[in-house]
């Protein structure tokens, strides 16, 4: 099912363009991203999108091939494997009690360009 890519990119951008990517070697220790992960968690919580963020991260971690790269941002040249590791850490921090889906069990999400208005209408959040 289609999901508004920018909804999720708005959160993952806090990881891929946040504090940690300015460190000399961001991927040397993923703990450098912890503050950015907390920021992402807080923002998704405040905006009422934690469920979508969880489903999206779970889906991208279980099936990264050919699509996780679109969330890399332009600040740091993350490889797909690095993004997967980063998202896995974020998932583990935010939802420690909820296991990740095994490959094939994830929600079938298709990340597409979609206006915020269309998305809100689709999810019933339109004012």
């Amino acid at each position, binding site marked *: 099912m289609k999901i508004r890519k920018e909804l999720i990119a708005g959160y993952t951008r806090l990881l891929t*363009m946040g*504090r940690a990517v*300015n460190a000399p070697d961001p991927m040397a220790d993923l703990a450098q991203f912890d503050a950015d992960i*907390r920021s992402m*968690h807080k923002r998704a919580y405040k905006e009422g999108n934690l469920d979508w963020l969880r489903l999206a991260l779970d889906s991208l971690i279980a099936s990264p091939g050919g699509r996780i790269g679109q969330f890399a941002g*332009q600040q740091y*040249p993350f490889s797909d494997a690095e993004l997967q590791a980063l998202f896995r850490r974020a998932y583990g921090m935010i939802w420690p009690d909820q296991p990740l889906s095994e490959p094939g069990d*994830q929600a079938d999400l298709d990340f597409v360009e979609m206006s915020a208005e269309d998305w809100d209408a689709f999810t019933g959040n339109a004012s």
Partner: protein
Amino acid sequence: MANTPDPLANNPAIRQWAERFYSLKAWTMPDLPDPGDEDVDNRRKAALTELNKITIPAALSSGARRSLAGGRKALKKEILSADEAAAFDKIDSDISDLASQIAAQLDVAAARDLAQSALAAAEEKFASVRDSLDQGAFTYVEGLIKSAQKTMAAAVTDKNFKAVEATAKDISAKAEDACTYGIYFDTWTHATLALINPMTGGTKDAAAAARSTQMKTAATHSKAGNFGAAKSALEAWKTNLGDEDDLAEALSFAALMDGYMANTHDRCAFILASSVPDAKDFRNHLKNAKTKAYKEQKFAEAKALLQELIDYSSKDRGKLARYMRGFDGSLRADEGFRNALTAADTKQKFKGANDPAGAQADLQVWEKANRALMRKSHSKQIVKALEAKYNALKQVLAEPELSDLTTTWNAHKDLADDDKFDKKTGAPRYHAKLSQLFQLEKVVDDRREMAQILAQFPAAAAYDFHKPVADNIAAQKYPEAVSAVPAALALLRAMPGYLTTKKAAGDLLAVLPGDADALKSTLDDAIKAAEITARGGDPAKAAGDLQTVLDGTDFMDLVLAMADYRGKLAKVEKEHARTKKYLKLPAAESKLDEALQAARDRAGKDKEYGDAFLMLDTHEKLLKTVKPMATARFQVQGIIAALKRAGVASKELKPFEDKAAAAEAEAKKPDFDKAGTAFDQVRKDLEKLSTEAAEAYEMMDGVGSNAGHSLDRHGPDVSDEDLITRLKTGKPPNAHSDDERSYTGASSKFHSPQDWLAGREIAAEAALAKGVDITETEMTFTGDPLTDPDESADFTVEHGRPIDKAYIGRKKHLRSDDSGEPIADKTYESFEEVEGLTRAYVNFIWEPELLPAETTAFPVDPTVHDEVKAQDNADYVTKYTARHNAPPAKIPGRWVMMQQYPVADGWDNETKTYTNGNPGNMIP
């Protein structure tokens, strides 16, 4: 392609017909003269017959059709006005010319369509292969595309378009050749790295240097499109090997490895992690193959191992692995199941019968014969494997099916959790219902599209095409609802076209002159007939039928005028709204609104669509003056506010504020031309102060922080060469040593310090509007990290004017990792140059103060603590609490601008627009 103008509308051969229409004032048509001179009457009758054979095909552009239709009317007027037989010699000749011109233009239109398609295909081909090209091939194909786009933009004749088509097809073929070479290039870089890695000392250095030389030589050839020579240059490197045949061996292994990673690795990983019994025999194959290749240089053995792994990881075995996941562990208590499993294992064993499909079939037979045993397994699998899909589905379903889904899911889960698996009273009683409910997942997107159409075209609801789906959903007949979706969607998709055509026909009916009874009647009948067809279930045909009537030459001029007006209105309204976002100046906005409304009224009230179109054209030209003024003003306001925030002395700022106020007065009048010039000048004059302020901000942000690198990495003083070096090596423009690295996926820079400073301030003000004051130096800790104040605020500032250029990394370099395996590096082999970017990403982040070096009584008394930097408030509180056995009441700190750089993501360098939508944090 999007920039390609419509050459037909401006073709002089066509324009002459429009000019003739206007010179003859052919909008008024005389009546058919009463019979008189027989010769004249006969010639008139013959001329009208010939003229009536001429239709203006829809294949031509709107502008061309209007011109040609004008010519047709002009000729008709001449026919009706002629009073001498001799006059018809020229009229007949002109009718023939018009028919020939239309035929010729049809040829041009057809050639143009073919050229457009071929060019679009070439662009698509390049986009699909560009990330696999080396820099030479990238530059070569990109150059061909740009050249073809220019030729297309200038094309007028069918010969021109045919040439573009041929060129575009040639480019597609060249892009394919370039891609083939790119794949070889990848394999070669992979193989040569593997061959060099175990070498030592001078031999290794010489081989590496020779590799670099051959790559440069190859790039020279690929840049010229000579991929054969490029490949030969790479192959020539083998002279550096003791045995030149080693290169072929290494290449063969590298190609196999690339193929494995692209096509088999994911499936293989799944099988190896599954309960397929002999999977354990293959778990080390990949590792061993890599060791053989990269450590021991035994490529043949490595290849054999890898090939065996590929053969093992067949699609059938993948299906078997997935199928076997459906068996719950509790089944193992059953002897029959264990026997079935053993038999299946024997049948699927790779080094045996190797028949995983047969093994799966056998297990399915057993499953059918043991349904009672399998019910528990199915329930457990549903709970485990469908949970994520269930959670996604319940996010998007609406009532009444949402309640049905959640109720059924929870009832099933409760019973399964209670180990109740009786067919009639346990969890399995819900299997069929859940299966039906989950089918709704397949039509989520289609149903959303249906809802969107109904929301955008409410009138479509009255045709009830969506009803079969809605009725079946309401009746909980989910399979029937799912089956009904494709047909309902197809009908609804035709509705916007039909309703738009219907509206156009209705509008036309309203503007036809009162005495045009025949025309009115024809149109009215057509509208009614189309409505019957649409309601009868064929809105596409209804739209087509009605359009055919509208395309009749009697209506054409008016219909096209209305269509042109509507098209123009949509475009102008968009730009109008965009301009107002920057303007935010009520006096000027009212003037703009009035001008737009006047054009709307001319069409809506007076029904003068031609005039209304011209008024919109004038308004569009006005917006082209207003928008640059508004964006310059937007930036000037930001710059001056930033300078004030930076503490620039008021006497120093005063002259600029005065000039800005004078410009503002012109804008309020509104005199947009004068205001634009004045704001541009203020903006220019602010360069020196902006540079000083920007540097001061950066210096302050950088103290004790990773922030403060925006200006020296993305500032206007950074050279293009530095930007490319950063992409290709990771060395940043502000490197303090040759070893310093800061890798990036896109290296960009601002045109001016004013752009940079304005972006910072505009984002700071946007942050304040969201409740984040970046001047704050203390935060309160509430104990709940999810509701504590925000510690980051990021924005995408749309400057509305070009602020930047960038180099976007495309294909990554390869390097050897510690084990000698070639892996993708953080640097790039190829890049794309783009310019004209208009957006900047700005990110403010809260940084708590350092926790000082101190001695406290905790965790034990006394404990000496070093000075330490906390990542964020949560981290600060944890560290502080460890020292003081209580959280801090307040957290001291400051906001820094961690990033500001121009956004290259989603930029289309040809159209100079972003292809991605609003990122959700856009200003304004």
